[in-house]
């Protein structure tokens, strides 16, 4: 079942790469975070780690529901461009995405032999890190770049919960705190834009 979720995680990210509409992108991001939360819940239950179950719930509440909602509100408030066409043409993206995947899978192959539990997730999270970088690169608008940043956070989180069986609670809370701070700063940045124009 966890393999299924991890596949869904990667799949939603890849679909997000090919999306040309902002709200669809938010939907895919939300799905991405939701699978992440479910993964955290599943792994937390299997290794009996209460901290991870809590982080899983926080992830679902904040990343899958709150952040997409806030971003949608922001986009309506500040009139974002909702048609977001990737700068990289689809025919190149079709070649680029598998190339990145192959590269990262082989990059992490030695790791797979080292970590015995959940070895594949390291590979998937590294490749989703690269894919979110691609997501940031292929768009000129700010909004998809923010989504790219957030999905990068998701990739990190996936690595955190799978490769290490959960990081210290302090660090995870710190990461959440910083994420919220990032959202506040993004909000402030947009506000200023409105004052100027």
């Amino acid at each position, binding site marked *: 079942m966890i393999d299924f979720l991890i596949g869904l995680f990667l799949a939603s990210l890849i679909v997000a790469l090919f999306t040309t509409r902002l709200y669809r992108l938010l939907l895919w991001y939300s799905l991405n975070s939701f699978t992440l939360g479910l993964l955290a819940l599943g792994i937390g239950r299997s290794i009996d780690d209460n901290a991870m179950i809590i982080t899983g719930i926080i992830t679902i509440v904040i990343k899958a529901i709150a952040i997409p909602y806030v971003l949608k509100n922001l986009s309506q408030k500040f009139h974002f461009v909702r048609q977001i066409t990737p700068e990289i043409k689809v025919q190149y993206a079709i070649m680029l995405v598998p190339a990145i995947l192959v590269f990262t899978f082989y990059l992490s192959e030695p790791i797979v032999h*080292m970590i015995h539990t959940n070895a594949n997730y390291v590979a998937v999270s590294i490749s989703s890190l690269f894919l979110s970088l691609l997501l940031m690169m292929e768009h000129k608008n700010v909004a998809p770049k923010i989504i790219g940043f957030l999905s990068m956070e998701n990739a990190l989180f996936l690595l955190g919960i799978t490769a290490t*069986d959960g990081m210290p609670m302090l660090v995870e809370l710190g990461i959440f705190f*910083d994420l919220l701070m990032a959202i506040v*700063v993004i909000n402030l940045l947009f506000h200023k834009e409105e004052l100027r124009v």
Partner: protein
Amino acid sequence: MMLTLLLLPAFIMFGVSFIKKQKAKYLLAFTSFVILLPIVKLFLLPKPYNILGSYLVADKLDTYVLLVSSIVGIGVTLALLTLDKHVKISQKAYRKFYRFFAIFWIGLIFSILSNHMGIYWIGLELATLSTVYMIKTNYTPAAHKEAWNYMIVGAIAISLVLFGIILMYASAKPILGEDAMNFDLLLAHAKDIPSPFLFEMGFALTTIGMFVKMGFFPMNLWLANIERASFYPVAALFSGILESAVLVGFFRFSKIAMAVNYDHLFIFVFVYTLLTIFIVSFLIYRAKDFMRLFSLSGVEHMALIVMFWVSGAPFAALLHFGAHAFLKPALFLSTGVLESNGKYKIAGALRGYKGFKGGVFWFLVSLFLLAIISLPPSPMFFSELYGFGAMIATAKESDHMLAMIAAILFLLILLSIIFYRFVAIYQSMKYEGEIKEKTVYGSELFSLVIFAISLISLLLPQTLAYLHAIS
């Protein structure tokens, strides 16, 4: 108690930033000196001294870097008093600048003192996010664009750092458990890490993240553009405090990586820094304004520091680091005066100073300018001499002597390009262009004097002995 004292100036600044009275900011000039008290105490205490359990631990390196960055913080606080005299800034934005400067400072004190990879990262991220807003206080479209730019690139860099940290943590977790986040334990058990590849990969990702943050190859110009678009104290904070924290992190991570596999680390970092200096030297040659010039020169110096550190000359690296951290903020702060004729006018920038203040100002600035290209009495001269010597010494033990000599010759050529450019700029500042009167304010002159004194004190035998003891 110690921690409270360390954070006190920043908290006072945060509080004062809500007071609407104009005079309130003068209070900060005095309170910022308070930070020196706990640092002096830290120097006297036996090390490593646990400030907050095993999370915040002050050892010799920490204390040194904390001192350097605090002096920069004091200097910037002083120079901030006259920011509104040099640039146009609304009162609200001014207060916001102070507020986010305080958050920035708090984050970086945590980062510098942390003995815990997670706390290190959280502090760094806090500082990064608050910088975004400091850039935004300049109400221009360029600054707005660069604030977004910083948000995105900074976020990528910081995420890479976290990614690497997680990998490193995962590599050491089997033997250390949750304590695998502690730098000292990791260093002590570096040889026993069960999966060195995982660690090295984490280290590589972290390093790339840090290098992006410092403006290394291939991200050479983003820092310069941001510093150009924002107010000049931001640039001073970047080079003095933020880069100090990043470098401390690099020092710590690379120490562990050295114990894991020295050769991999050396080749990776050496080639990276060599490429950086190669690109940057030509970018400096083409620089048309003070901000970009100093910023790119800062990148060059950081590359040198990193290079010295990995090639077995920590003493040279730390000396260079101290000199860089004092010189760059001083120069950035003086650009407020130097650019009073206009942003892109280098010629004549050092002319037209009257009276005692003016005289001291141009004397100090020319001193700093000549010091960053490592003319002999400057600490940079000694550090480079010592650093290159140590590189040769390291190469002697291996069989890559010729390659190392070639690399050093190449480096010297690149450095001479930079040297040539700076001398030309200095001449143009002093002897070309029209004479226009410029005003220098007491507070910024005072901060320059502080920087000059700290710079000279780097060359005291006690300081050198202390730096030797760190390595």
